[in-house]
């Protein structure tokens, strides 16, 4: 008898639905279209490099060395916030597993009763009362769940995102519950950085003009077109207005504890629509909740790296105690139709921080053919 074994390593994130791309062993999670994100990176790094290369030597000597130092710190902070916003899970809600989806379907059918044939079934909506306000929870046909309040389905990423704000192409990711504060800090500090660079550009030009005259200063702008200071000054100028505007808009949203999505739809504006039930009616409290609230865990992270949290605790048995989709089949033998996923993944139970094993070697699907 000859046995042919074909093994294929399945990366865990390939099994996840939705249109996200993952990098660095699944630690980085972004949308599929990243072109504009690279443009953002280029603009920020390009402008700052030119500033550091051409303006800072003059300013450090003639004004103060603290100026470039502060610019460097601000630049690093902006980059950190940008990368954090782009690479983190925005708060994606995982889709319902078949049993949960069926359970919800049965509940809906029980609630609707018998719909006469030819009539459309009533829309799938659940009403919940939050702080004396009726909020309608809609059913997501893609994810097969009733969306929690403030969640929305992003068609670009094909995921339901909790506290969905908007999908930002500049950042290459959705902005949701988990990364909103990084997004806000990014816009805020980028505005500050742009104002800072623009202001010191003007100072530089003024100081040189005092020495040499205005026209001579412009002629001596370092660099060649289009990569010279004038182009980037222009870029700075337009960036400045859009960033300051965006920061102002989001500051307004935060003070009211609203999302961009809710603002656009007009969920809480107008007399007939009711009050925002999530607002604390106090600007400071709203700001604190959004910016200094708890850091929520990424459930996508959990599905990528950990089979079960309890696996990290000392156990009497070696098998996982809580059955889930990663459990080998000796717990669920009756479900014959279920595909066997082969031997249990060789990933050791990992702690929260940098995972010890790569989620690449999740399951080795081995196909043995016996003659």
């Amino acid at each position, binding site marked *: 008898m000859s046995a042919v074994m074909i093994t294929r390593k399945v990366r865990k994130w390939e099994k996840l639905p939705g249109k996200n791309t993952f990098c660095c062993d699944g630690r980085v999670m972004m949308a599929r279209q990243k072109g504009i994100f690279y443009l953002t990176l280029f603009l920020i790094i390009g402008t700052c490099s030119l500033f550091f290369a051409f303006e800072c030597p003059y300013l450090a000597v003639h004004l103060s060395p603290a100026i470039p130092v502060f610019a460097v710190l601000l630049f690093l902070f902006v980059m*950190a916030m940008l990368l954090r916003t782009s690479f983190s899970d925005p708060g994606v809600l995982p889709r319902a597993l078949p049993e*949960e989806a069926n359970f919800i379907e049965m509940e809906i059918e029980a609630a609707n009763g018998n719909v006469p044939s030819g009539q459309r079934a009533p829309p799938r909506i659940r009403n919940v009362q939050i702080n004396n306000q009726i909020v309608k929870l809609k059913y997501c046909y893609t994810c097969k769940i009733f969306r929690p309040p403030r969640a929305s389905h992003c068609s670009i990423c094909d995921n339901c995102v909790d506290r969905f704000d908007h999908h930002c192409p500049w950042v290459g990711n959705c902005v949701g519950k988990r990364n909103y504060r990084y997004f806000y800090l990014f816009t805020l500090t980028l505005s500050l950085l742009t104002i800072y660079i623009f202001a010191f550009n003007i100072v530089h030009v003024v100081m040189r003009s005092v020495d040499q005259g205005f026209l001579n200063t412009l002629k001596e702008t370092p660099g060649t077109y289009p990569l010279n200071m004038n182009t980037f000054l222009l870029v700075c100028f337009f960036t400045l207005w859009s960033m300051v505007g965006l920061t102002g808009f989001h500051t307004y949203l935060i003070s009211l504890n609203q999302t961009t999505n809710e603002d656009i739809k007009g969920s809480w504006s107008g007399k007939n629509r009711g009050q925002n039930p999530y607002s604390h009616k106090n600007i400071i409290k709203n700001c604190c909740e959004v910016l200094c609230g708890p*850091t929520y865990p990424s459930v996508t992270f959990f599905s990528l790296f950990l089979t079960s949290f309890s696996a990290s605790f000392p156990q009497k048995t070696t098998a996982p105690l809580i059955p889930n989709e990663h459990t080998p089949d000796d717990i669920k033998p009756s479900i014959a139709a279920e595909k066997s996923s082969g031997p249990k993944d060789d990933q050791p139970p990992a702690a929260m921080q940098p995972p010890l094993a790569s989620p690449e070697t999740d399951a080795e699907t081995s196909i043995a053919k016996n003659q």
Partner: protein
Amino acid sequence: MATEFHNLQELRHSASLANKVFIQRDYSEGTTCKFQTKFPSELESRIELTLFEETVKTLNNFYAEAEKIGGQSYLEGCLACATAYLIFLCMETRYEKVLKKIAKYIQEQNEKIYAPRGLLITDPIERGMRVIEISIYEDRGSSGSSSGSSSVSGSTAR
């Protein structure tokens, strides 16, 4: 009525999955993580109401503690912001600490209370914090007494 007593090892070897019940989220207080304490009818024959309620209430308390907005969360937030959130590379967040406590608690409850009754609780984090999944097991080879295969009627509507 299944009165077999299992421990977790027995569950693995002798029981088969009959049904699953999903405890939904309770949004009456907003978007904070809280689960409904309504007792599902499928569990009526399996476990006492008080034990079930106590489990869910304790879990709700854990989540409330994790999501509490107060002095400690402000401090954590401001400190993290000052370090450009790099501090999270070496430090565990408060939420993560509470999640570990929750996992330990669920394991304990499974071992002591639920497995002997042929039930198993799945940590909500594995279901996206949307539901508490309780799996109902039947003894393998038990003659047709599937208490779980129907359960449409009387299931919680709305």
